C-alpha cells in the first residue's frame, strides 16, 4: 500500500471495505428476511397448535382442523406423550421461540448490529430447535405413524432457520466459505431427505390416493 494515510480517497476506502463487509456477513439480505418470515410462519403454526390443544382439552372429542385422513392427522399426534416432551405441550415452546426469532429478524431489518454473544444465543436456540424437530420427525414417522400438518410447517421453517444462522455463525471458517457459496444445495438435499422419508414411510397410503 503506497497511498498516503492522511487523505484516503473515498472510492478507495469504500470499495474494499464494503466487499469485506459482505464477506463478513454472508447473507446480509436473506438472513433478516428469513428470520422475520420464518419466525412469523412458525409462530402462526405453533399458535394454531396451541389453540387446537386447548380446544382438545376442553372437549376430548374435538377433531382438530388438521385431522384430514389417517395419515394427516393432528389429533392422533397431539394426544401422544411426545407432544408434551417436556411435560407441557410442545407448541408453547414454539410460540415463545418463534416470537424471538421474528423479533431478531425485524431488529436486523431495522439495521441493528448484534453482538457476538447475541448470535451465540440465537445459535443455541436454533440448534435446540433443529434437534428437537428431528426427534419429532422421527417420532411422528416411525413411532406415532401419523403426520400433523401444522407440525410439518414448523419442521419446514426450523431447518432453514438453523441452516442459515449456522452458516452465519461459521462464516469465519474456511470450510464454511465454500458451503456458503452453495448454501441452497445442502438445504435442498435436507428437505428432499425428509420428504423421501415421509414418502417411503407412508407409501402404501399415498399410493391409495392415486
Amino acid at each position, binding site marked *: 500500500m*503506497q*497511498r498516503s494515510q492522511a487523505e484516503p*480517497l473515498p*472510492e*478507495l476506502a469504500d*470499495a*474494499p471495505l*464494503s*466487499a469485506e463487509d*459482505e464477506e463478513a456477513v454472508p447473507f446480509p439480505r436473506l438472513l433478516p428476511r428469513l428470520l422475520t418470515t420464518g419466525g412469523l410462519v412458525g409462530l402462526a403454526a405453533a399458535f394454531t397448535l396451541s389453540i387446537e390443544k386447548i380446544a382438545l382439552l376442553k372437549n376430548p372429542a374435538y377433531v382438530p382442523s388438521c385431522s384430514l*385422513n*389417517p*395419515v394427516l*392427522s393432528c389429533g*392422533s399426534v397431539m394426544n401422544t406423550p411426545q407432544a408434551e416432551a417436556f411435560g407441557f405441550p410442545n407448541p408453547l415452546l414454539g410460540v415463545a421461540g418463534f416470537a424471538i426469532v421474528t423479533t431478531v429478524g425485524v431488529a436486523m431489518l431495522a439495521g441493528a448490529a448484534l453482538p457476538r454473544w447475541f448470535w451465540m444465543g440465537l445459535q443455541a436456540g436454533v440448534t435446540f430447535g433443529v434437534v428437537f424437530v428431528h426427534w419429532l420427525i422421527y417420532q411422528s414417522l416411525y*413411532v*406415532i*405413524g*401419523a403426520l400433523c400438518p401444522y407440525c410439518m410447517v414448523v419442521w419446514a421453517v426450523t431447518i432453514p432457520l438453523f441452516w442459515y444462522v449456522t452458516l452465519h455463525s461459521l462464516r469465519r471458517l474456511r470450510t464454511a466459505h465454500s458451503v456458503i*457459496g*452453495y*448454501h*441452497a*444445495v445442502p*438445504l*435442498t*438435499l435436507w428437505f*428432499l431427505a425428509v420428504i*423421501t422419508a415421509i*414418502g417411503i414411510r*407412508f407409501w*402404501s*397410503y399415498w*399410493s*391409495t*390416493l*392415486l
Partner: protein
Amino acid sequence: MPDPRDRGQTRRAKISAMREQEERARRRNKNLTISLTVIGVFAVVLAAVFVVNRVSGSESAEVAAGESRFVRADSHKLSVAADGKVTLVEFLDFECEACRAAFPIVEDLREQYAGKVTFVARYFPLPGHFNAERAARAVEAAAGQDKFDAMYQRMYQTQSQWGEKQVPADEVFRGFAKDLGLDLAAWDKAYNDPATLERIKKDVADGQALGVSGTPTFFLNGQKLEPQSVDDFKAAIDAALAS
C-alpha cells in the same frame, strides 16, 4: 491532485470489486442451478418409481362371473337378504375410530333390515393404523372357523383397549380367539399364513379400484353412500328397497 499511482490503484480496486461481484453472481447462479438440478433429478426418480409401481403394482383381480368389485365370492356377509335386491358394502378398518362409531349404527341397521338387506364387510386396513392389518388378519383367521361375526364385533367393542397403541396387539387378538373358543393352533396358523394377508390385500385392491381412500366407505348397491346421520342411512336404504 491525485497522483497517477493512486488512480491506478483506484482502477485496480474497482476492477477487483467488479470481479468479485461477478464471481459472486456466478456462484449464486451455480447455487441455484445445482439446487434445481437436484430437485429435478428427485422429481424424475419419483416419477419413475410411480410408473414402475403402476405397471407392476397390485392390480385388483379380474371380476369372475357372479361377483363384482363390491362383493366377491369370498366376501364376508354379515346378513343376507333373501331377494338379494339391496346390498350395503362397507370397507372398514378395525382400528379406525369412525368405523367404530359406525359399528353400532350398522348393527342396528342389520337388525332392522334383517332379511331385507345384505350387509357385506370388506377389509380396508389403513397403513396409518398400527394394528389394523393385524386385526384384519385376526378376523380373517376367525372367519376360517366360521366366527367372522363374533370376531368382527369383538374388535370394535374392544378397540379402545388396543387401538392407537403403536405396539403389536398379537397377544390381545390371540386372547380374543381364545375367548371365542376357537381352535387356537388353527387360528395361529391362519393368523400367520401369508395367504390370510393376501386375502386382505385383495379386498384393499378392490377398494382402491373403487376409489376408496378412507374408512368407513359405504356402497349401497354399488353407489357410494356418504350418510351424515342414521336417518340418511335409513332413507337411502328405504329408497333402494322401494325402487
